[in-house]
């Protein structure tokens, strides 16, 4: 590629960090942390007595330990909280066994259910976690404990990576894909190919036919929505239903999932990409309490 425009990386979503101004770690009893090293993104969440204190969310690098270290360093940046004051760290996600400072690794399925329970409330019974390289449908109880799940981690269709490929192809920033896909007067037929490689060729054909970008994105978002709805229906949906993971921020996919299910997913009060790390930090808190009971 020759010009600067085509070298722009449209998939590169915005990394972020946050500190809760209303909390101070010095006043807290239990300081716990969760680190979710996903295939595409890594989040570090630090909680003070089960309340969100600070976090970071960044792109996963080429190795898991470095990604975990970087995310933790960035989360702690500017907080005066030293790493050794965190009493318990739980690792989760694809790289969970490679979090250097974690005492324990817990699967992302358990953590996402627990995190969704925290973000959306105890009425949540079905969680759809749309991650970077996988997609999970999870059923849970009022405490966020997993009762059943189904997962696709073999195929990029229905994952964040698939959406990144489309952002690059259409040269639309990943943060804008969802909104742009809703700017159509009429919903087009969904992209018919399941495979992302073939869907890409199909999209190129649609562009050649003169379809505007919005319409192509609409066709892809609805294909993706349909794909994950199939997974949800196989598991069986019990209300209330919520979406976590990076795609939960894509209104184009979320709206189409809601339309197909005829169910509304609640608006997240906290970045839904943090659900796994939040769940891990809550498990870490529970483990500190358990250790104390033993002692």
């Amino acid at each position, binding site marked *: 590629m020759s010009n600067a425009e085509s070298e722009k990386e449209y998939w590169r979503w915005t990394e972020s960090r946050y500190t809760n101004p209303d909390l101070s770690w010095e006043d807290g009893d239990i300081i716990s942390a969760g680190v979710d090293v996903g*295939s595409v993104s890594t989040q570090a969440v630090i909680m003070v007595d089960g309340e969100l204190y600070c976090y970071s969310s960044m792109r996963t690098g*080429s190795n898991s330990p470095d990604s975990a270290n970087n995310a933790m360093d960035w989360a702690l940046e500017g907080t005066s909280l030293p790493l050794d004051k965190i009493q318990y760290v739980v690792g989760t996600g694809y790289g969970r066994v490679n979090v250097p400072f974690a005492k324990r690794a817990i699967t992302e399925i358990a953590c996402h259910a627990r995190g969704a329970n925290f973000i959306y409330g105890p009425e949540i019974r079905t969680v759809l976690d749309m991650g970077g*390289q996988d997609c999970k449908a999870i059923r849970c109880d009022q405490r966020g404990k997993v009762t059943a799940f189904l997962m696709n981690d*073999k*195929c*990029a269709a229905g994952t964040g*990576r*698939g959406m990144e*490929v489309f952002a690059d192809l259409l040269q639309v920033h990943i943060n804008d894909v969802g909104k742009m896909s809703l700017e159509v007067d009429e919903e087009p037929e969904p992209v018919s*190919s*399941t*495979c*992302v*490689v*073939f869907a890409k*060729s199909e999209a190129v*054909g649609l562009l*050649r036919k003169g379809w505007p970008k919005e319409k192509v994105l609409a066709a892809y978002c609805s294909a993706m929505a349909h794909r994950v709805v199939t997974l949800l229906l196989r598991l069986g949906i019990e209300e209330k239903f919520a979406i976590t993971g990076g795609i939960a921020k894509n209104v184009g996919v979320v709206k189409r999932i809601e339309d197909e299910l005829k169910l509304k997913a609640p608006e997240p009060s906290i970045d839904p990409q943090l659900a796994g790390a939040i769940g891990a930090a809550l498990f870490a808190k529970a483990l500190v309490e358990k250790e104390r009971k033993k002692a």
Partner: protein
Amino acid sequence: MITAGIDCGSKNTKVVLMKEGNILSTASVLSGFDQEESAEQALNSALEKAGIKRDEVKHITATGAGMEAIKFSNDTITTITADARGTYLLFPSTRTIIDIGAEEGLVVKIDDQGKVKDFGINEKCAAGAGAFIEAMSRALEVDIETMGELSLKSTKKIPMNAQCTIFAESEVVSLIHQKTLKEDIIRAVHDAIADRNTSMVRQIGIEKDVALIGGVANNIGFVDAMNKNLGFDLLVPKDRIAPEYVSALGAALIAQEKSGG
């Protein structure tokens, strides 16, 4: 009497010209956007090579994914039938045909008369087709033509975890970052696609002899991986015609029949 077979593949359009059971010429062009235009070009190029005029061609039969677009053809036949006919002419001992094209993989079982008994098809996923090797060659920045040769130089078998082409791209990039030798990565790529196709063939059932056709059969690294998986050598067209022309050959043979030749 002269006939033509046109195979409109998802990537390339191939033409075979025949006269009384003999192959006169072959030609291939990129399918591109306008498939009929590409078929026209491929046909003209084959005519030119053979030194014959368009009106000498008595019957044209089209096959392949884009066959409906070829309005100037007399009729169409499925890839399954075309594969069976073309392969049976080249290797009459064939009972199982594996056809790996750019975007799909086919297994066709035939009897001792070349009649189709059963078939299986993968057209849903790029990971078992030529598109997989193509994507990996881009990630590796290695010319696709040299992939086969390079992989045979590998001395180390490494696993490939990703099934999906999109995920495999990232895996290849991280293998490059880990300073894994290119030839070992390419071998892993060929092993991965060979494993997927081997299980597709096993599902239908393997009956010898087994022939391998389609563009991917030109990749000696893939052929080697398939031979190792199956424990015997596949029949791969070489001298009379290249493996990507076998479907077009089958179509040209059927065109001969249809026009009374």
